[in-house]
């Protein structure tokens, strides 16, 4: 397919979309959470109901990706009114269809958050849950059918790829990404543009682009939702990155625990290949890019880039010392670019709207938006996207609706086993890379777990240490031995058998492990311990046996 053909398809799809806009569109959330709650059954029943009423020509039922408030699922959304219904099941579909499609008014009792707010908002966009969010990476997630490339094309899909191929050279693309001040969304926050430039500068006959979708942090499901909700966006981002750095082959490394994400991404590749958006001579240019999916096999350490590369090569996922960095010598010794799913998802809007536009969102040092997976003892758990610099208080109390009944906020855990816990006195912390580090936590990939007083912080530290101990690949001693020693000491404290000496020992060990481990897993393993020690020292002291 050449450029003109793509343009024709896009305008045809847009025209179809315009016609469809006159129709009532009913989106049924088919993200993994809602499917688990029974949304596929709901969709079947909904189609039957519409058919029975002879409305099939006036409405369009679309299965979509994640809509956000996952614990209220299954979710159904009526467009253009944006009336959203929660906990829809086969018993209440009839009433919803009657009210919405026949009586033409929302059915208040079943609207989103109807059982928890004094008065629900008929237009869900007015609800604080959505109003405080800014969806860029998740923009089309929950609106389009992730299994149809046509839907993505109708929403300006692959326009950014078209733009870079015909109007920009690789240097321009890198300059644009640099200007956007986008930073890696996988956790470390390395400036994406600089990473691309480094790979671009190495001369090699073959370069690779890898998408890191090995979301191993417990309590995180952002990458899963992006891949399930809009796989083409990630694919487009990867193709743009490949063009910018001069790669012709890409790999998407996705967790084996996410079968739906794998299925949808593989389908996306197939559809894009059919339209000539992946493969040889894309859109008639001399740029060729092909991509394969690699399925992870359940090793947290494979989120580390050198370990991930080893895993793609079919080996044990153990990290290597850096340098050489993957940008110089990565997959099969060739220059390799590795970015996170969410980073790639941010690329297309940056190209379409310009780097400057993106850099103005968020804070001066952390530009753009961040997707968080909000869970734990919070009223509305789910997937949210906010501008960087939004305070934790806004996320917990405005978007998340506050704590579950009768509980009090105690701590928020960010960054999974590499992060830390933020106590209530720091609820006004801005969620950006630097502010979180200053509190002894990290942004991480975006898991945000809210805890109440029922969580024992020493046990939380032990829980994460157990995770790191189990997931340590065993290559370097500080991590392999250190995490076990720290775990045993934490266990001793939890069992009320430790003395002050043990606690001192623990603190000392934490520093050793942090400073001497080979890769990020070991270097960040003490973080949950150190941050709970810093903010919840009292809980440790209460457990220590006092000698007279």
């Amino acid at each position, binding site marked *: 397919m050449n450029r003109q053909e793509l343009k024709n398809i896009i305008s045809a799809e847009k025209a179809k979309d315009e016609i469809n806009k006159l129709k009532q569109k009913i989106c049924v959330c088919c993200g993994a959470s809602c499917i*688990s709650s029974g949304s596929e059954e709901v969709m079947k029943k909904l189609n039957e109901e519409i058919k029975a009423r002879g409305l099939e020509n006036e409405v369009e039922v679309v299965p979509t990706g994640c809509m956000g408030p996952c614990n209220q699922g299954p979710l159904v959304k009526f467009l253009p009114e944006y009336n959203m219904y929660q906990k829809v099941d086969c018993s209440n579909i009839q009433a919803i269809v009657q009210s919405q499609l026949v009586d033409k008014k929302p059915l208040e009792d079943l609207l989103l958050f109807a059982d928890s707010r004094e008065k629900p908002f008929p237009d869900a966009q007015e609800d604080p849950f959505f109003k405080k969010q800014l969806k860029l990476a998740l923009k089309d997630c929950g609106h389009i059918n992730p299994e149809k490339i046509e839907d993505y094309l109708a929403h300006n899909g692959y326009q950014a790829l078209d733009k870079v191929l015909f109007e920009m050279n690789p240097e321009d693309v890198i300059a644009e990404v640099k200007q956007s001040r986008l930073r890696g969304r996988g956790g470390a926050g390395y400036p994406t543009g600089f990473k691309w430039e480094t790979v671009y500068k190495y001369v090699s006959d073959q370069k690779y682009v890898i998408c890191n979708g090995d979301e191993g942090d417990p309590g995180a499901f952002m990458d899963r939702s992006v891949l399930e909700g809009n796989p083409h966006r990630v694919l487009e981002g990867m193709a743009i990155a490949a063009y910018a750095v001069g790669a012709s082959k890409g790999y998407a490394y996705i967790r084996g625990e996410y079968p739906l994400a794998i299925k949808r991404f593989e389908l996306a590749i197939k559809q894009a290949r059919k339209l000539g958006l992946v493969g040889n001579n894309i859109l008639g240019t001399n740029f060729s890019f092909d991509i394969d999916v690699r399925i992870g096999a359940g090793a947290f350490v494979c989120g580390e880039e050198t370990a991930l590369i080893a895993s793609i090569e*079919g080996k044990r996922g153990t990290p290597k010392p850096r340098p050489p960095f993957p940008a110089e010598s990565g997959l099969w010794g060739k220059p390799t670019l590795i970015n996170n799913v969410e980073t790639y998802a941010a690329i297309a809007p940056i190209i379409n709207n310009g780097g400057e536009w993106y850099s103005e969102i968020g804070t001066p040092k952390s530009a753009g938006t961040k997707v968080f997976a909000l869970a734990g003892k919070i009223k509305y758990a789910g997937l949210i996207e906010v501008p960087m610099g939004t305070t934790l208080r806004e996320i917990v109390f405005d978007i998340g609706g506050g704590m579950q009944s009768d509980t009090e906020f105690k701590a928020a855990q960010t960054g999974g086993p590499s992060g830390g816990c933020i106590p209530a006195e720091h609820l006004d912390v801005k969620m950006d890379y630097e502010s979180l580090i200053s509190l002894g936590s990290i942004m991480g990939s975006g898991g945000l777990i809210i805890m109440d007083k029922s969580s024992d912080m020493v046990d939380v530290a032990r829980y994460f240490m157990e995770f790191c101990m189990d997931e340590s690949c065993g290559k370097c001693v500080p991590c392999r031995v250190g995490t076990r020693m720290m775990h045993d000491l934490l266990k001793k404290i939890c069992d009320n058998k430790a003395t002050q000496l043990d606690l001192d020992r623990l603190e000392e060990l934490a520093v050793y492990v942090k400073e001497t481990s080979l890769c990020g897993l070991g270097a960040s393993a003490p973080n949950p311990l150190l941050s709970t020690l810093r903010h919840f020292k009292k809980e440790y002291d209460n457990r220590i046996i006092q000698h007279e």
Partner: protein
Amino acid sequence: MNHPPKQAPFCMKSDMVVSSKELPKTDPRVKLIAAKMKKENYQPDALIEILHTAQNAYGYLPKDVLTYITGALHLPPSRVYSTVTFYHFFSLKSKGEHTCLVCTGTACYVKGAQAILNKIETELGLKAGQVTPDNKLGVQVARCIGACGLAPAVVLDDEVEARAVPDDIIKKIRTKTGIV
């Protein structure tokens, strides 16, 4: 938290090289693996992909299947064995006819995954990683299945049970497996 007991390494000399009994070529599962290896061009770097196919077909990785893959890819048995034991996803033992996978991710931990595991242990006598002697039921833990909004989550035979309550889970397991 309970840990799956470490799998005893099988002796390579007797298990993998010497006693490599031939797999029945007509077995559809063997055909599936053979087709996958052919598709991947017998490249050693596709080992993990091939292991995924094998585990999907058998439910776990029997030793003779590993021997077969080892031979076809011309890899040393140690390489295959070390890869299989490195990744949590792969299992050398049968996981049971029915599986109960308890998510122990952070959200599930905060919302009481341990209580579910404790209940399973007291009611059914199974710890994480164990299988009943008649191979009817296996209990496993997952790091995080990414269904944090539904915490605590339990997966019974590929079906996710949202906001799991210990007593209900036991009841469902009993109905599914017939264990009393």
